[in-house]
């Protein structure tokens, strides 16, 4: 990249800000599954007046916040094996029912992390393909059957390579499944086999963003400024 290129690390959104932006799109009453790790932060940033109901694969709907250290009940955990709490409205159910909720199309939104997302909506997020112990969990179920599949991700890898690509090189989690991508620089929809730019942070130009993206970014109508609060 040229010397005039913006220093991306100084202007990009934090993971918390990416999660905040994704949370703004969740409708009141939506049933939502959050992937293990950074997508879990979405739950903290629900807008006032909008309350989603969160699902976790191991058989809990509408759970409460993490307990205080020392107050954990290890029969009450989420899919990340972290302690959670119950609250009025919580429901427990077995694994086949839990995945009937997923595979039967009852979840409104699944929000996951990604290694690569293709312009066709293909997602790679479970295997680096480099050997070691493979592990898939519930990701392949979630991406094929939730009504909306959103990805939270840095726009580029730690080496600066695009994560939004023409076609995935890593093992796929699902085919044509991603509908919206919230990155550290932009909000991008997947429509008709193309990336459509909806929002970008004001500090980056379209050309700079395109240079960091592995497939063409289409513009249809306005591209809004992506502005998040300091978190």
């Amino acid at each position, binding site marked *: 990249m040229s010397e005039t290129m913006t220093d991306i690390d100084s202007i990009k959104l934090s993971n918390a800000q990416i999660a905040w932006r994704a949370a703004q799109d969740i409708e009141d009453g939506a049933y939502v599954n959050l992937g293990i790790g950074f997508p879990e932060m979405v739950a903290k940033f629900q807008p006032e007046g909008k309350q989603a109901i969160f699902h976790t694969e191991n058989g809990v709907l509408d759970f409460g916040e993490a307990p205080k250290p020392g107050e954990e009940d*290890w029969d009450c955990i989420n899919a990340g*094996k972290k302690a959670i709490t119950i609250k009025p409205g919580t429901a427990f*159910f077995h*694994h*086949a029912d839990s995945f009937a909720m997923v*595979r039967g199309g009852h979840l409104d939104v699944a929000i996951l992390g990604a290694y690569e997302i293709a312009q066709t909506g293909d997602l790679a997020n479970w295997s680096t393909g480099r050997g070691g112990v493979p592990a*898939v969990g519930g990701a392949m179920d979630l991406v094929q059957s939730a009504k909306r599949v959103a990805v939270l991700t840095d726009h580029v890898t730690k080496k600066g390579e695009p994560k939004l690509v023409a076609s995935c090189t890593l093992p796929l989690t*699902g*085919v044509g499944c991603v509908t919206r991508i919230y990155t550290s620089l932009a909000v991008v929809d997947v429509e008709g086999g193309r990336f459509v730019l909806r929002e970008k942070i004001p500090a980056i130009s379209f050309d700079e963003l395109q240079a960091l993206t592995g497939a063409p970014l289409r513009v249809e109508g306005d591209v809004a400024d992506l502005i998040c609060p300091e978190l």
Partner: protein
Amino acid sequence: MDKTIASAAEAVSAIPDGATVMIGGFGGSGAPIELIHALIDHGAKDLTVVNNNAGNGHVGLAALIEQKRVRKLICSFPRSADPRVFTEAYLAGEIELELVPQGTLAERIRAGGAGIPAFYTATSYGTELAEGKHTEEFDGKHYVRERWLKADFALIKAELADPHGNLTYRMAARNFNPVMAMAATHTIVQATRVVELGGIDPEHVITPGIFVSKVVEVPNAAQEEELNRAEAVYP
């Protein structure tokens, strides 16, 4: 009819070498630690184990693997906070892994219990986990055919049990336990408390006793997470 027996050792004593054993639990929640440890003491080997995970630390399923009793593991997520036992065995080629998406794993077990030999699911379509599997298009969407999964034995952790084997579970410790109880020829249950007939409200029964073979009461059952925080090792 009384399915209760006196000890975990007696409960697992009929499990032979080479058996397929489903073990309930998701991570540590709902893991029947006392039954697994009794199985280690019993000595059966060349087991095929079905569990969501591959053990954590050096207790429970991890201890069973560490004692080299498991020939093959069928699971969705063989990683944990301390996955060294499985990882070392796998990378050394000492244990076979069949990796199954979590929902497909649950549904294969449910299908096994319900007498449904195969079913179609969109999960894994177009991925390497669907390679070699039959696919078919229904109403414009692609699906992968998956086989049922059954076992010779299931090791289950319940909260309450009665002498007929009716069961309740505690919170998220339910997870795979009810479907595994359906899918095994012999289902062995450790219950935190055995109550008399009528001690469980019929409206609250989660696993009806028809799916259960034996029940052993294990009060104050160990939690895998707490054992691992105490750096416990079994045996």
